[in-house]
């Protein structure tokens, strides 16, 4: 038997979820989330281990994982900034914020800084339109953004490292 990459915590979390669904395949999204929370992204070997755990072909896991934008099939930086540029945010200055973030971090949208500290992405509507512009910083929303608060946030993350 191959050595397991996913932790006992992963398997324990999944065991708790198993009785909540009439079909094991419904565990695919929860297990991808759980695995990504552990690894930060979803390498091929992890997808294979999830396939084995659920009892489906690896291709089926890849088919599902590739449909959803939140699953990182490539590595991302330690702090993943996802800036919404959809209508409400764009009306409140999201495009200028994106330009600023690109300059500040020295990367283009979609790229990771060479030290692996930040990834900058463009996000579709995050569902926080009345506090636009908004970005996600890993799992948290940062709302009512402007250039100053974006600058302060990036500086804060840099200093915490």
């Amino acid at each position: 038997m191959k050595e397991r990459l996913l932790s006992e915590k992963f398997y324990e979390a999944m065991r708790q979820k198993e009785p909540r669904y009439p079909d094991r395949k419904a565990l695919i999204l929860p297990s991808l989330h759980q695995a990504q929370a552990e690894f930060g992204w979803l390498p091929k070997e992890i997808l294979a281990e999830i396939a084995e755990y659920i009892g489906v072909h690896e291709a089926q896991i890849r088919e599902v994982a590739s449909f959803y934008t939140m699953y990182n099939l490539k590595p991302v930086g330690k702090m993943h900034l996802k800036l919404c540029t959809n209508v409400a945010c764009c009306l409140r200055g999201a495009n200028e914020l994106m330009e600023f973030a690109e300059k500040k971090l020295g990367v283009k949208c979609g790229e990771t800084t060479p030290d692996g500290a930040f990834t900058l992405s463009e996000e579709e509507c995050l569902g926080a339109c009345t506090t636009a512009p908004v970005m996600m910083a890993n799992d948290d929303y940062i709302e009512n953004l402007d250039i100053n608060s974006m600058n302060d946030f990036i500086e804060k993350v840099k200093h915490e490292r």
Partner: protein
Amino acid sequence: MSANPQTLFVQHFWKDSNRTLDYYLKEMNGYEAARKVLGSMAPDQVVEEVKKANIRGRGGAGFPMGMKWSFIPKNSEKPKYLVCNADESEPGTCKDRQIIRYTPHLLIEGLLIGSFAIGCKHAYVYIRGEYVREAQLLEEAIEEARAKGYLGKDIFGSGFDLEITVHRGAGAYICGEETGLLNSLEGKRGEPRVKPPFPAVSGAFSCPTAVNNVESIANVPHIIRLGGEVFAKLGRIDKSGGTRLISLSGHVNRPGVYEVAAGSMTLRQIIDDLGGGVWKGKKLKAVIPGGSSSPVLTADEIDAVYDVEPLMKIGTMMGSAAIMVIDEDTDLVKLLLRITKFYAHESCGQCTPCREGCHWMESLLHKVIHGEAKPADIDLLVDVAGNIGGKTLCALGDAAAMPVQSFVKKFRSEFDAYVKGQSRHA
């Protein structure tokens, strides 16, 4: 606010401590509606009460909620499911998020009553993946309710059992479409299904299923508490009971989530009286009245009463009640490109008109903005939109077509100016 004397939600919003079970029990008569339903009502009576309430679905389509529940077969041998749509992804919409953050127990109690009404023993809340913290808050509230015996086995000694599972999405607009959502719940790509069969017959895990929006379900305890008829009368307009949570965003002085009695205000009143008018003293150019897919309105068209039928009469829709206000300095061609890019990105790719058409519209708009378009390209753009709308399995095709058709029809001169190289935004 005299036009807005009665609200059901917003007085409990914006304070973190209001989300606790303690607050819900003390300040909102928490779980009394469910106790009454489980103790003294038959499932059919609950459905009848919801029908009397005249509540339209709050997710976007506006379908009468009681009728949706009545489609669930009573004598099915299969399990039945109530699935709450918390995918909240139509651009502009952020009301369900506030319900989950500040009044999660209203949603849980609504799920309890709704599950009893349709005979469901395991309800699912499908929440958009980005709402990580909201999913955690909801899980915490579910645990609080379970610890008190409001969920689990033999609730209120009635013999009725219910479990609720929170299922996180992972970033796909299309999972807000109810059959895309069901596929995603089942661990598949979120591609909408061919209908029929409708979910009421074959939904989650091939079983009879009702899919309802968060705000719809969170209104159910109010309906039982007030009675269907009183709830219906909260609305000031036929066929639309209760209040509406409105997400007001864009170029207004006070963006926010507001609550108004259904049909009690015009769009203009909402923008001016609630939103404090267009920001920076600028003039209004356009309004997107019901999420980014709804046909755009000009500044002259906003005296319509803000509800489902009055908006339908002027050729647009209330959708998820997300109003986006656009000021005079906005480049509508670029804004339309942004909207179109979104739908092109989110098209699941099953239906050719949507998969190909959305990208085609996006590239035509690129041409317009880069000064490479001929006058005929604007007509072609509208023609492509016309060949998507109504020709796809789900409403995403229409959602992509309607903005293009309405922006060009109502603001043609801005497109023509780009073609002639005369746009002030170029």
